[in-house]
């Protein structure tokens, strides 16, 4: 199989372009001008004579029109059918499907609230559902177009904000309302379904560590799921998927309340960012199976094996964000990058030194995964790996994860979907990187040593070409300092 990449302007130097055999430019950096342009991608696929298209897990990955366009172009879409994407892609239709499959759902509006639904009607359904509630984009995902409302007075504003954000992010401003459970866990079940009627669930993933509704740490198995509950949740997930004739890889997301009751939340009709942890504990290559299933092959995995976890895996999403500045994105040129390796460590990275983290997309630069025989050992391994993960030139969330994994609540598994936001609020911006006087003195010594050991800095030239920029900028800084002694 020979991989072909498509890329936008700012991704010209991205790893997926450099590693592909063929690469096709599909437009400017803004997603709607490139990665969201269905015809541009179909066109590239035609040009290179591709047999199939893998949609990845962003942009058009859950877009039924794209899946249909690929199919209509006579190509294989490596994912579910457009019909399944459409059904489960609509949060409200998905809830109906779940209920038909006999799986409980979180109380909420049955029908989407299109932009023309009057405010008083929205207020009425809200009252029926009860507060606190969530306003969610029907086409939503990743916390975009989502607002929490505790006070009826804030409802109208929240709906407006959610609609505008949803419109920008998904081109669909329709929203719906959903009861907000108190302190629930986010537990999800990975599925593989083939075109011969087989749907197999995997051991659940625990994704409750979220910041502003975005997963930042995932692990499998979940401390909150007993074998009995696992059996119930995995078979419920499979039932929902079967009910809509689902094929290929997908994930059923549940909320698990404090009393151990679970509710269908939504389905992701694509591969997910956190799929590596399932691969680590199951030994199954999910992407290879996506391709085999798309080719019409039968899944010949042992169902019992898939819901028996072998060890424990944790994923940290390494973002180009400044955790000590309210997690603001930190785009720019990566000056140095050294990723950890060794036993049990897997780093699925899109970054290298010299690469620019673009401002246009989600700033995730890597998925760092640690596997070990049990959870405490997996945490210890992840801590070791984070301690070796060196990135300079941009800020990353590595120091945040180092802090999080040391928290007693995390280590004992006492958390829920709002745990992280609450802790962050209570920390009130206290830095994650805590230096000691000794460390600061060493830093001072190091800076002085660098100035002494690199006399060439005095010759540094501001007109150094772009490639040399980071170094040069640094030399200038030092040179200025030197000049002023």
């Amino acid at each position, binding site marked *: 199989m020979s991989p072909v990449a498509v890329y936008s302007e700012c991704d010209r130097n991205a790893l997926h372009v450099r590693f592909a055999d063929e690469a096709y430019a599909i437009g400017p950096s803004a997603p709607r001008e490139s990665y969201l342009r269905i015809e541009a991608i179909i066109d590239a696929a035609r040009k290179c004579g591709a047999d199939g298209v893998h949609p990845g897990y962003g942009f058009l990955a859950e877009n039924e029109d794209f899946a249909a366009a690929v199919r209509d172009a006579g190509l294989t879409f490596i994912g579910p059918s457009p019909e399944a994407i459409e059904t489960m892609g609509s949060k409200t239709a998905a809830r109906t499907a779940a209920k038909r499959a006999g799986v409980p759902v979180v109380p909420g509006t049955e029908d989407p609230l299109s932009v023309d639904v009057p405010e008083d009607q929205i207020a009425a359904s809200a009252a029926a559902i009860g507060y606190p509630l969530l306003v969610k984009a029907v086409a939503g995902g990743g916390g975009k177009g989502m607002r929490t409302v505790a006070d009826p007075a804030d409802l109208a504003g929240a709906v407006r904000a959610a609609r505008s954000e949803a419109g920008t992010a998904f081109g669909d401003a329709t929203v719906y309302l959903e009861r907000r459970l108190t302190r629930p866990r986010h537990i999800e079940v990975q599925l593989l379904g083939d075109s011969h009627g087989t749907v197999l669930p995997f051991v659940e993933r625990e994704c409750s560590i979220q910041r502003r509704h975005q997963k930042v740490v995932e692990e499998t198995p979940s401390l909150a799921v007993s074998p009995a509950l696992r059996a119930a949740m995995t078979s419920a997930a499979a039932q929902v998927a079967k009910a809509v004739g689902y094929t290929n890889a997908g994930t059923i997301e549940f909320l698990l309340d404090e009393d151990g009751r679970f509710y269908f939340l939504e389905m992701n009709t694509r591969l997910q960012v956190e799929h590596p942890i399932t691969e680590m504990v199951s030994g199954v290559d999910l992407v290879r199976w996506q391709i085999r299933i798309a080719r019409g092959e039968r899944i010949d995995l042992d169902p019992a094996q898939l819901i028996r976890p072998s060890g424990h895996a944790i994923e940290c999403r390494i973002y180009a964000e400044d955790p000590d500045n309210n997690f*603001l994105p930190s785009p720019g040129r990566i000056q140095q990058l050294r990723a950890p390796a060794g036993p049990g460590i897997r780093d699925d990275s899109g970054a290298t030194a010299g690469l620019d983290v673009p401002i246009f997309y989600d700033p995730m630069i890597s998925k760092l995964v640690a596997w070990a025989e049990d959870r405490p050992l997996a945490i210890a391994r992840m801590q070791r790996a984070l301690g070796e993960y060196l990135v300079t030139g941009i800020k990353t969330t590595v120091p945040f994860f180092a802090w999080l994994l040391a928290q007693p609540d995390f280590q004992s598994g006492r958390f829920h979907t709002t745990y992280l936001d609450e802790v962050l609020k209570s920390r009130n911006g206290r830095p994650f990187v805590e230096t000691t006087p000794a460390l600061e003195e060493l830093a001072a010594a190091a*800076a002085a040593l660098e100035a002494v050991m690199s006399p060439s800095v005095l010759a540094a030239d501001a007109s150094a070409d772009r490639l040399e920029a980071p170094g040069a900028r*640094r030399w200038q800084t030092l040179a200025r300092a030197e000049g002023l002694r």
Partner: protein
Amino acid sequence: MQYEVEVGGRLLQVVVTRTGDGFAVSVDGQTRHVDAARIDGQMLSLIVDSVWSKEVNVAADPVGGQLVVHIGTTPVAVTLNGRRRWGRKNDGAGTSSGPQRLVAPMPGKIVRVLAKAGDTVAARQPLVVVEAMKMENELRASREGTVAEIHVAEGTSVEAGALLLVIQ
């Protein structure tokens, strides 16, 4: 060579002297022997007092402009020979006195301006919402004060480092 290094709010006097087998580095009078080996353009491997091994990495922060020293993977911001003399004091780079100049930490689009000139604001009160990387990010006041100047309007795009507003 003598340097004045500001780090963690302290001003340290650092004197570096070459010795036969490395450097004598004195920080505020306390001298240690440092074996410093160049690994690459930015990384040094230090062995302090013939025992303690540390990788250090000295580079300028592209946004703030100040030097960031990574000790292992822990970043520590320092200024060498006086930010004052660089005339960078009012960069809003965390200074705790004088007017606060709120600058854009990254390029993006101003989606909301939550304060107007004359407003009294509290520490950590949201002032401006910038959209970048498809996420809306709140920029907050680092301390209480009065909004003296506003330099941006909703809907406009700004570059990293652009001055957004000033708090007296």
